[in-house]
């Protein structure tokens, strides 16, 4: 399987990268780790005639703390997320999630930016970003925008990213010390996209849930925030009846496709199960 022909560019500044993307318009695509784009190009599902490789843009790399936020460069690989002390200390849910993404070889190349930028509903990181309430910095020729993740995903492979823009930073508010977290992913085998997955970040106070957010992966055209389900559990000790209600509320917003991972009913059912498991486990690690 050989991709169609394209011209290769490796700009060394963000300004040059944006200019190239603008000049070539729809014919150009940014290239990060290539582990979504190259397979799509082999299948001719993507046929860009210009690839703008972002690897030389140092400003797009690295993980740092800035006041009450963690700022992650989109060219940070899943492998680098896994080796980062900052991530395992302040955003342990990302460490946990990166471990269930793909396989070791893919994690050395695949980047967080490539995982979240193009609105692939199968990818795991978009739901994590929603749960953590991240903000994406998008740079174009004329302006730099900070877009809330909750406004970013508009449909399968359809996002707020305009042609000619690149994502240059991901800003995540640090959850409170002692927060509970869990990412529960049901997959057929290692390296598979989720049949259903749920992310939970919560805080507990006096044995009851004080704050909660829940994200869902691969259960709709885009990653989802299960707001009603999260609201339902606040003030409870996550007793069985509450967990049941929360699963049902989450299932109500799911609209997965029937595919090799199972029929719609099954995927919704296990989606509910993932929500209940993630809530329980998150509460068990909260202090």
């Amino acid at each position, binding site marked *: *399987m*050989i*991709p*169609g*022909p*394209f*011209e*290769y560019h490796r700009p060394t500044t963000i300004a040059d990268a944006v200019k190239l993307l603008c000049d070539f318009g729809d014919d150009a695509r940014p*290239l990060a780790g*290539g*582990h979504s784009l*190259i*397979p799509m*190009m*082999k299948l001719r599902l993507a046929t860009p*005639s210009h*690839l703008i*490789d972002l*690897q030389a843009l140092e400003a797009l790399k690295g993980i740092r703390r800035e006041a009450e936020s963690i700022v992650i460069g989109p060219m940070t690989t899943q*492998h680098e997320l896994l080796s980062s002390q900052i991530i395992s200390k302040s955003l342990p849910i990302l460490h946990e999630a990166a471990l269930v993404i*793909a*396989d*070791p*070889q*893919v994690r*050395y*190349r695949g980047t967080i930016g490539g995982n979240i930028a193009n609105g692939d509903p199968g990818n795991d990181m978009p739901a994590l970003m929603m749960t953590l309430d991240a903000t994406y910095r998008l740079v174009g020729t004329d302006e730099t925008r900070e877009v809330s993740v909750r406004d970013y995903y508009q449909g399968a492979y359809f996002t707020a990213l305009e042609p000619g823009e690149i994502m240059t930073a991901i800003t995540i508010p640090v959850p409170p010390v002692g927060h509970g977290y869990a990412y529960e992913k049901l997959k057929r085998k*290692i*390296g598979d996209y989720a049949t259903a997955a749920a992310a939970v970040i919560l805080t507990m106070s006096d044995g009851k849930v004080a704050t909660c957010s829940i994200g869902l992966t691969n259960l709709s055209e885009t990653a989802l925030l299960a707001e009603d389900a999260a609201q339902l559990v606040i003030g409870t000790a996550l007793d069985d009846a509450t967990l049941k209600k929360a699963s049902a509320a989450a299932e109500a917003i799911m609209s997965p496709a029937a595919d090799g991972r199972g029929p719609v009913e099954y995927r919704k059912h296990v989606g509910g199960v993932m929500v209940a498991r993630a809530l329980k486990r998150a509460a068990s690690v909260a202090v």
Partner: protein
Amino acid sequence: MTTPQIGKIHVTMTVNGTQVDGLVEPRLLLVHFIRENLQLTGTHIGCETSHCGACTVDLDGMSVKSCTVFAVQVDGANIMTIEGMANADGTLSALQEGFRMMHGLQCGFCTPGMIMRAHRLLKENPNPNEEEIRFGISGNLCRCTGYQNIVKAIQYAAAKLNGTEFKEAAE
């Protein structure tokens, strides 16, 4: 749509310690550069869809699937393939010896990728337990062995490299 006229790009890499170069189309995959331009056919192509790991090579200290990398992306890189695994004097490296002694292969198709992946795994974790080995090679598929002997082969190599005694776990 007219087919664009694509210029070739000159790339230079170090492969198994030797500097190599070539004039390549941007769409040339690293695995084809290795197998066809360099005639190093130990690196295999299994699935071509980034799943099987048969094409795994070591690239600047990372195991990567060379069917999912363009040669132009890795201009300047340091690459090791299975042809670079043996010791300098031509004897088998600990991993190769482990695969031989523990019957870590049957048809051998997955073996170059398995060994290249295991090489990086042991660099990062010189003393992995069985679970860590299985998780560490989860991007490599074998259709013959059932993995049991591959795990043993890697344990054998780890023991040899660590200078400890290899003990086969009771089954």
